[in-house]
């Protein structure tokens, strides 16, 4: 690295800073004389000395003319921006930090703050989660910048969510490697030998480029790896010195930017595809389970083709929209019970799909049981098999599979559909058609049962979660809507009651179940929807919002509209029964401490006024709304506000789930 120029630059920076510190503003003429006299009279020296003649001259005289570019050429970080621009990255949500000041300055000045546009974030976790939500709508990854140590630690939970949810993200962490030249004190606290180590367990790849040409290769490679299924976050440590040195190649070689060419996703082995097709075609009751199958909208079309060819019921585990909820073959999770063949497509947890675990065993250890018939054949197509790591346990419990393909399911489906069509014996066609008729009947019954369940507690106060969801649907149903997030738990009413059919209708969950994902992911997804002309709806949980509520300001600042309807149940409901369960096992009453749940699980006394919080950050907001009868009018008003381009929040008090 070209350290000489940088050292000179830093020396200048330190000297100028020192001069400023020693130069009070009132040091002119008579005042100076008076100060000199006072100094002579006092035996104790003041904490800041008046300037001597040399310093005073340096302060007051016209400085020597500096070269047009004091680093002696185009900035290295300008070249980095040129590289980034070839990748078509539209936004860079980030929280500012000195360790990436070089590239920050280049992005907004040299790069014109376009492709990518810098979005001001108030927490690195928010920045990464925004990229997470944005990708799920647009199919395009974002990059983020962060301080390599403190910022990356803030970002790490969101990176883990992206890893578990198979979402690409390019994280660039600033770091100052050269201990002999980096600024002392705070910037040195914020430097490390290997910042990437912090997230290496849950990123697909990382690198620490040591030259500008190396950066160009790393950046294009990072994008390529992130965007090759199975998708995932990648990390680049970016040396502060490299950002600030002049742009030049090795030995005078001209710098170049490698071309990005997408890598085709891995498809299943042809023999395994045929074997799977035979099992499915000859099955009496095949059931398909999909979790992260539909990487793109085409994944939904392919799954409909496969399901209809087999007249097989489909359980959508909803990490994406994989299958239209309105289709007669759409089935609840219990449909695995009667299956003789189960096809799992990109399942995060196959074991838990075919087994259950009950947290109520004799000795405080949960009990396992099977959900399926003995002898049921299991088929899996899952690209996650290609990137299993050791430390974090996102690979879940081990499940024996009869036909297992380490491959991308969406890329494999065309071949599987053809193979299934060829493998169905003519004699089976009538039985398969009858299976479809039975599925239509089961779907209609399930539809009625679900709605009757939603009617229970319809007029309750606080408002039932079913009512919350359906009042919201009624307010947006005429629009091109997209549910950008559902944090917390509303008894799955959104996916049970809304006619979810398109890829952008439902985006799934966080992946790693790290609370605090919902609010920032909703803003990122709403950003992509804004650009696509869609209306964003977010069912926002109270606990989730309070992890980093500053993202509300980011939404207002960058004019990212969404309708946030609070599911304000005033507690961390997921944790309530964990404490209560242990208290029951130990035969002692749980200490509620004057609240409505065990100490440490409630968000009440005082109640948080989320509408005021949102309003203070530039949102239109109303609340608290506690009666169901007040909800429809408030929603109508809020929808109009969102359509005008302003984010709106309704603080609604709800039933726990």
């Amino acid at each position, binding site marked *: 690295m070209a350290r000489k120029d940088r050292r000179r630059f830093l020396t200048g920076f330190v000297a100028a800073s020192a001069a400023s510190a020693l130069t009070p503003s009132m040091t002119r003429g008579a005042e100076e004389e008076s100060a000199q006299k006072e100094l002579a009279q006092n035996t104790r020296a003041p904490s800041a000395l008046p300037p001597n003649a040399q310093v005073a001259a340096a302060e007051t005289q016209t400085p020597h003319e500096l070269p047009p570019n004091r680093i002696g050429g185009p900035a290295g970080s300008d070249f980095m921006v040129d590289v980034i621009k070839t990748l078509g990255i539209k936004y860079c949500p980030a929280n500012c930090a000195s360790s990436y000041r070089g590239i920050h300055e280049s992005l907004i000045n040299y790069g014109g703050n376009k492709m990518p546009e810098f979005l001001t974030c108030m927490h690195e976790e928010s920045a990464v989660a925004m990229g997470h939500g944005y990708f799920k709508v647009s199919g395009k990854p974002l990059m983020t910048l962060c301080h390599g140590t403190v910022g990356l630690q803030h970002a790490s939970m969101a990176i883990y969510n992206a890893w578990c949810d198979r979402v690409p993200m390019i994280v660039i962490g600033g770091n100052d490697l050269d201990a002999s030249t980096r600024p002392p004190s705070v910037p040195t606290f914020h430097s490390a030998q290997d910042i990437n180590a912090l997230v290496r367990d849950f990123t697909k790849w990382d690198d620490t480029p040591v030259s500008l040409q190396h950066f160009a290769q790393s950046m294009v490679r990072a994008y390529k790896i992130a965007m090759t299924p199975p998708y995932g976050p990648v990390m680049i440590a970016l040396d502060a010195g490299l950002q600030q040195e002049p742009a030049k190649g090795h030995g005078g070689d001209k710098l170049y930017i490698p071309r990005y060419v997408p890598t085709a996703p891995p498809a299943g082995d042809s023999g395994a595809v045929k074997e799977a097709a035979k099992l499915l075609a000859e099955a009496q009751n095949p059931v398909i389970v999909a979790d992260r199958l539909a990487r793109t909208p085409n994944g939904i079309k392919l799954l409909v083709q496969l399901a209809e060819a087999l007249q097989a019921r489909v359980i959508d585990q909803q990490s994406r929209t994989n299958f239209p909820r309105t289709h007669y073959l759409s089935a609840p999770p219990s449909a695995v019970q009667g299956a003789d063949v189960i096809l799992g497509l990109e399942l995060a947890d196959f074991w838990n799909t075919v087994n259950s675990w009950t947290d109520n065993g004799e000795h405080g250890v949960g009990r396992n049981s099977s959900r399926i018939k003995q002898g049921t054949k299991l088929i899996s197509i899952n690209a996650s098999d290609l990137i299993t790591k050791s430390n974090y346990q996102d690979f879940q419990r081990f499940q024996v599979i009869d036909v297992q393909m380490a491959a991308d399911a969406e890329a494999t489906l065309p071949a599987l559909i053809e193979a299934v069509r060829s493998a169905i014996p003519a004699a089976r066609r009538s039985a398969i058609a009858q299976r479809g008729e039975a599925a239509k009947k089961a779907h209609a019954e399930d539809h009625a049962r679900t709605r009757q369940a939603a*009617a*229970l507690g319809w007029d309750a106060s606080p408002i039932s979660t079913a009512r919350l969801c359906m009042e919201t649907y*009624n307010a947006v149903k005429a629009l091109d809507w997209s549910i950008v997030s559902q944090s917390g738990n509303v008894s799955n009413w959104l996916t049970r009651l809304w006619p979810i059919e398109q890829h952008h209708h439902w985006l799934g969950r966080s992946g790693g179940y790290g609370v605090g994902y919902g609010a920032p992911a909703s803003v990122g997804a709403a950003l992509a929807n804004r650009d696509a002309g869609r209306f964003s709806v977010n069912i926002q949980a109270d606990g989730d919002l309070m992890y980093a509520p500053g993202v509300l300001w980011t939404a207002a600042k960058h004019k990212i509209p969404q309708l946030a309807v609070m599911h304000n149940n005033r*507690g961390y409901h997921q944790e309530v029964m964990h404490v*209560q369960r242990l208290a*029951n096992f130990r035969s002692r009453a749980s200490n509620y401490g004057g609240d*409505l*749940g065990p100490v440490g699980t409630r968000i009440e006394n005082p109640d948080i006024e989320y509408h005021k919080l949102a309003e203070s950050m530039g949102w239109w907001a109303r609340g608290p709304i506690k009666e169901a009868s007040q909800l429809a009018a408030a929603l109508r008003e809020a929808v109009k506000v969102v359509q005008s381009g302003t984010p709106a929040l309704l603080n609604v008090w709800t*039933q726990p789930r």
Partner: protein
Amino acid sequence: MRFLLSVLLLLGLATTPALAADAAKGKAAFMKNGCWQCHGEVGQGGAAGKTLAPKPMPLEAFNVFVRNSNGQMPPYPKEILSDADLADIHAYLQSIPAGKDYKGIPLLSQ
């Protein structure tokens, strides 16, 4: 365990508190003991807990289940939920009127 519960029910071995149950007290106990957290304030149920009302299960079965549950709900021993409170809670659940038919709710019948 499920078999055992069924046998207990058939034999009538489940204990029934000989107390006059009070729906108002039952609602207070339902809230105070956190039943509402999973089953909802009017027993409507949801992802975390089964529907309890309207038409709760008979008191005898209710008692056996609460004391011996081996499902997702942990058992509640007498030390933390008395027979009297349990009877009152059942009375509260019985007092909850039947909900509307979904076909009469425009948002659900559309």
